[in-house]
């Protein structure tokens, strides 16, 4: 979560009280760097114990000058956030006067004033080949004989999690990651079999400049949107968005796939949501969050696109929905 670009600019308050037990290692990173502004935990473990640990969480944060605070009553803070909604926060080790801090907080314009996606996207197009580490799939649950080989996927990087790229690479896809404002013409010039719109930080409404790019690609090649990518695809299809009171966070959200009525437990991290009921044309809702009934997925077969609000690549969170990447591959294959 600390390295997930979707958390760019945020102070993260973890409900799990014991943090740092198994340390960190670069194979689990979701981007090159930690992305959060600050990390709040109840009890921090200074001495990680795990065969996979390369260093402790604290050392890693220190290296990147990110403040981690232990001893926080994270449950009280959680309850406060639930009641009052997500809010601006300030951490200081120098200034003790709450009034001064409050003033600084009031002066802070908030993270939505920043071009967060612009901060986290890659600088130039580049290929991705790394697959998930061995451990991700226990022996035998591993796919054999499923091939997406020779398929070329262009991934729009709005702050893409490495796990999304790994998931595509696992299926044999050739992956090219492109910066967030790559024009449709440039992207299509790469002759992709499909385009993936990645996750990313911030309010989707601030990225209206990206919508025309997506609209230009729609119908030309299959599109798969995830999280922010889902929201942007939805906007391109005519949806508007709204802010959830405190967002969907964590790895235990039940989402119903409407066609099969089956429930998947999903990994979620978003503060905004597409408005259910604003579907037009051949667009249909495909998934609903069972906790609050909000839209979690949509599909438009005529225009070769589908998207989900949650994270089928897990990391962190349950792996119930990894089949969506396969669905994307099938879509690309059928098109050819």
């Amino acid at each position: 979560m600390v390295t997930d670009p979707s958390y760019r600019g945020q102070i993260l308050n973890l409900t799990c009280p014991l943090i740092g037990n198994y340390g960190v290692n670069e194979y689990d990173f979701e981007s090159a760097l930690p992305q959060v502004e600050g990390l709040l935990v109840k009890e921090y473990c200074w001495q990680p114990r795990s065969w996979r640990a390369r260093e402790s969480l604290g050392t890693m944060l220190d290296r990147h000058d990110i403040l981690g605070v232990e001893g926080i009553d994270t449950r009280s803070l959680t309850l406060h956030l639930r009641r009052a909604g997500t809010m601006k926060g300030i951490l200081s080790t120098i200034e003790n006067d709450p009034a001064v801090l409050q003033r600084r907080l009031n002066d802070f314009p908030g993270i939505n004033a920043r071009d967060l996606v612009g901060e986290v996207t890659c600088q130039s197009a580049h290929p991705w080949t790394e697959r998930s580490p061995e451990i991700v799939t226990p022996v035998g649950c591993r796919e054999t004989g499923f091939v997406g080989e020779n398929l070329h996927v262009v991934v729009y990087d709005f702050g893409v999690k490495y796990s999304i790229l790994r998931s595509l690479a696992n299926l044999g896809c050739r992956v090219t990651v492109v910066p967030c404002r790559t024009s449709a013409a440039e992207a299509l010039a790469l002759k992709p079999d499909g385009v993936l719109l990645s996750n990313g930080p911030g309010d989707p409404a601030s990225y209206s400049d990206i919508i025309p790019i997506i609209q230009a690609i729609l119908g030309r090649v299959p599109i798969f949107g995830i999280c922010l990518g889902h929201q942007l695809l939805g906007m391109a299809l005519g949806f508007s968005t709204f802010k959830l009171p405190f967002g969907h966070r964590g790895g235990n959200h039940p989402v119903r796939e409407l066609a099969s009525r089956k429930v998947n437990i999903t990994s979620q991290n978003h503060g905004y949501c597409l408005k259910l009921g604003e579907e037009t044309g051949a667009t249909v809702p495909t998934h609903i969050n069972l906790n609050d009934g909000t839209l979690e997925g949509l599909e438009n077969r005529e225009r070769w696109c589908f998207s989900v609000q949650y994270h089928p690549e897990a990391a962190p969170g349950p792996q119930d929905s990894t089949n969506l990447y396969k669905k994307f591959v099938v879509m690309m294959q059928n098109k050819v």
Partner: protein
Amino acid sequence: MPRRSDLQKIMLIGSGPIVIGQACEFDYSGTQACRALKEEGYEVVLINNNPATIMTDPAMADRTYIEPLTAETAVKVIEKERPQALLPTLGGQTALNLAVELADSGQLDRYGVELIGADADVIKKAENRDLFKEAMNRIGLAIAESVHLKNVGEALAFADIHGYPLVIRPSFTLGGAGGGIALNKEQLVEMVGTGLDISPIKQVLVEESLTGWKEFELELMRDHNDNVVVICSIENVDPMGVHTGESITVAPAQTLSDLEYQVMRTASIAAMREIGVDTGGCNIQFAVEPDSGRLVVVEMNPRVSRSSALASKATGFPIAKIAAKLAAGYTLDELTNDITRETPASFEPAIDYCVVKIPRWDFTKFPGADQTLTTRMKSVGEVMSIGRTYKEALQKALRSLEQGYDGLMDPKSQESGELYTSLDQLKEALPLPRASRIFTIADALRKGLSSDEIYSLTGIDSWFIDQVLHLVEFEDKLRLAEELNEEMLWQAKTWGFSDSRIAFLRGTEEKVIRELRRRYSIYPVYRRVDTCAGEFEAYTPYLYSTYERGAVETMAEQPSANEGSKGKVIILGGGPNRIGQGLEFDYCCVQAALTLRKDGYRVIMVNCNPETVSTDYDVSDCLYFEPLTLEDVLNVCHEEDPEGLILQFGGQTPLKLALPLLEEGIPIWGTSPRDIDRAENRREFAVVVDKLDLWEPAYGIAAHRSEAREIAARLGFPILVRPSYVLGGLAMRLVYTPEELDIYLQSGPPINSANPLLIDKYLEGAVELDVDALCDGEKMVIGGIMEHVEQAGVHSGDSCCVLPPYSIGTQQLKDIHRQTELLAHELNIRGLLNIQFAIHGREVYILEANPRASRTVPFTGKATGMPLAGLAAQVIAGASLDELGFTAEIIPDYYSVKEAVFSFSRFDNADIVLGPEMRSTGEVMGIDSNLGLAMAKAQLAAGTPLPVKGQIFITVADIDKPQAVELGRSLSRLGYDLLATRGTAAALRVAGVEVKEVKKISEGSPHMLDFINDGKVDLIINTPAGSGAFSDGKCMRQQAVHRGVSIITTMQGAMAALEGMRALQHSGMSVQCLQEYYRGSSPSS
């Protein structure tokens, strides 16, 4: 799909008596299932022979059959009730085995009964090692190399290939009974041999050992639409090689990264689908190689298990209740989460706290038994605690155990000098998994051993050892600090240190620390187990304490359900199960809670036992999952400020707190603690008895050894000796000679003026009676009188008893009534009173009086149809018996027999002789209008059926010979063949009864043990004569238990059994439910 409307009547199978390995977690799951199915409008038929569980309360199911859990009786129930479906997954292995038997024999098909929750093939696939291995291989999951075998030779061949150590698991046994780890050839041969014996299908699994690997468990639920959720992950602190029921465990898993956990989660879901568990719960165990992360599936239970009870309590997700509803047709997303009320049950609980479970062992009850923990369960109970951190939860759990620990030190080992003093000793002790290993680890850290060294000696993940290290280091700070300032006290409380542990470290009294806390205003906050880590509003007040400076969450800010029109009452539960204090007390607490809620009180339950019904958040208005220590109870009182606190239902645990709570000004309801003390304190009780002009056996109280000898000489042998203030007859002995007394004085508990020894004259040959009575301060009504089949001297919890009495005259019963009334008034009883009487000759003696709910209350209640604990709760709350309409003793026109059930087969070398010290773990009940049949049912339920034909072995004391002749004659007439040792055989022959003489052990082979061993004996009747026989019969008794041969040790018992056998031959058993029995009974006085 919503609930199935094609079903109207569903049959449930309970788990039977409490034995080690299958305890009251199934009382919890079964009770939840009953309630859930009734809530859905189904008619519930229950078969279970355990009287102590709330599940068999007539209010739970619609038709309650307290009948033996055998295929034969189950078929009779099916025949009579014609249920459309049978739900077998909530009654543990017992229910599952019985269901498979019924399915295999074609009985379910014959009566058109559908197995719901799991089908027979699924059960077999999960439980049969080969099928399971195949299934796991199909989905590519690794499992340990293993082989199923039917003889020792194959085991040796397997060992040649795979080497040692090897794990041995007999097929289809409870809690891994008969299992273990063989380190060499000798052990392998022995363990495989025993395993083959006890496996119902005579099959044993031998597999490569994963000893030392990390062990994890996941609890899953699946519905028929193939939705799967993982409720909880549990990590074992002790690595593989120690049964998960024997291990300290923590939830959620602490040493797995999200990625590793998710891999395991995905694997578990794949496994559940592959095995095909259709609906309901299942539990899967994994082993992980610490240095490589290699994941291996260990086993899977396709049913609700011990761990599901723990997982339910740890997360607030009611697994059994949901499992029952899924079996009735619902899908997970159609059910709501009780706690949040708006989100569906198809979610995975998020935990923002840490849960620790520690088992409780009672090794002192099984002298000689090997105390090393293995893959076989030996613990008799467990505690769970919740804290924000592992440190806090661990320390809370340790003090919840009620074994004298108030922190990371074992005071007993200090007193007895067992404390390991040198590093070498510690290093030697660490690799052995023992009950006390957590303390050994703390001691080793104190002596400077590093976490890594301890890891390499124990295989316990260093993370857990680090946690103990932090605590041990902080103890030093606490000890050495000049002043215990506010900052430091906060830190100590946040890490779970008890006041008494802090006091010990500071060299002061607990009270001083408590005062200090009050001065600094350091109180715990109570947080909700809300299933969602605060994401949604929680409505169910299921709470735990934690210390968090400046925390905002208090009860006041929370929505609360029933405020209670009549005020708040706290009920203190019974704490961890142990021998002598188990399920019976939880039954009383639950009945009391349910009754008072109905009466409009806001009932607050405090308990720390995760297996029980009382810690189901549904039972009370508010549940505090807390240790039952003075400190923790006072904190709850501080938070709640209750109108009253009731402590007479939870056994000795809350009773011990009576006087200290009173001193702190807590309003205690019911019989006053001072009167309780008058009854419990022997000297004061003698004054009471004298004053009322009643009789008790002559006695003395010894403060030192020589005094004990003097008293013994004055009273004359035999005598009963025991330390004061005990429950379950701990360290109580029957002593026949001065030599035996000397042995007891040397090896028994220490005697001093603070802990004097009680010595009673033993009334040889007396008949013992148990009376449960209710008194409202004015009126006394007897709830029931039970006659013991065994003579006085066998602990009342271990003996077989009958209600109503069958051999006592009206005059004596009247006298008992009179004496009970006198005592009830003298002791100002408000609530329950239990008295044990002995009838010796024509005289009635009082053995003891317990002014509280007794172990027999559930049995008495069921035998008479009166909810005694509920009535008692109402009386305690101020109602009169007249108002409640309970004014006269109910004497049923049928017989109820209670028989004790032991778990001796768990302990290879333990001596199994019955005596004044209680050692049974559970009990069964048999009901019939015919005394003999009731007896036969109880015996059958206890697993020691009376034979209808075959050979009976009789060997009795000289004094019993005349009666034995009569017995022999009758048995012979009934067609049994008799075997006897020389003396008894001679007596029988003289009387013209045909008998075959068998050699005593000392007379050389083939002797009586060989006969028992060869399965030639169907029943043993053996009465011990004096102390000699008590040790003489030991071999025979052990052999009998081992071979599962019924053994009767008293002439009274034998005569009753004779009636049973006669009745069995004559008419066979029929079944009838409680509801039918009660219809036929009416009050009489």
